[in-house]
């Protein structure tokens, strides 16, 4: 009986590495869409190898329904929460700048001006802001 602690990411990484090694082993073999398949493998492998992210959000303010505004703001907040301190975050308002506490935040590591960023995320996700 073999007991195994399930580690999905580890298995996924190992599978992708094996797939890439196969592509190296058979460079001459002509497979339709091989190039595309290679690109897909490297794109997915990169997510395992490189962990740093740099994200700029462009956020509209004019939504047909407050529901969507709420979802958009919450989506940005959730992604911001998931970023590590080494990741970079930036934001530009592409709607009515008077409706948001801050029209833009220059792209910089998340750890810089962290309190201001947290405050901004809180402010745009309050009931007062939606009303």
């Amino acid at each position: 009986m073999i007991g195994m602690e399930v580690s999905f990411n580890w298995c996924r990484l190992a599978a992708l590495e094996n797939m890439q090694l196969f592509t190296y082993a058979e460079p001459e073999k002509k497979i339709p869409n091989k190039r595309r398949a290679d690109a897909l493998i490297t794109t997915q492998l990169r997510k395992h190898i490189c962990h740093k992210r740099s994200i700029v959000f462009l956020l509209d303010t004019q939504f047909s329904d407050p529901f969507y505004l709420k979802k958009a703001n919450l989506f940005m907040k959730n992604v911001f929460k998931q970023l590590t301190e080494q990741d970079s975050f930036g934001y530009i308002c592409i709607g009515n700048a008077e409706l948001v506490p801050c029209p833009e935040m220059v792209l910089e590591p998340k750890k810089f001006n962290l309190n201001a960023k947290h405050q901004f995320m809180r402010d745009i996700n309050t009931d007062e802001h939606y009303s």
Partner: protein
Amino acid sequence: MKRTNKKGQALLNSSILKAIEWQKDIPNEKVIHLGHEYDNPHKWIICLLGNDTFTLNNNSVKNAMIAANQKVNISILGLRNEEFGIRSKDYWQVCDDTEEGVFVNIKKKDTCRSILDQVAITFSVYKQDKLPIVTELSDSALQK
């Protein structure tokens, strides 16, 4: 309130160009793994739009990327209870020109959350997990 002035309509395009410029200031590191060179960090521009009044020029975005020598992925999420109109083709084109960018028009409220979660996966990274612990039991244990 609809955006009628040209400046307002061009705000998406000019903001994308500005964001590409910002991304230029974030240094790229090269990581080699199994003989392949990867760029670190992953650079993304995520646009959350409430309507399709914004104009977008595919060529100006492409040229800005070339000028900045940057590989930036662009995703555009349209959040409106109606389908985006004629400009959605331009939005799709800009996203499609990037490696991993997607254009999504979310119309139904009930599927909004799950679609947003799926979009979030496109720019997520997978942290290193510890190695699985494989425990082989003795033959006597197997017979029990």
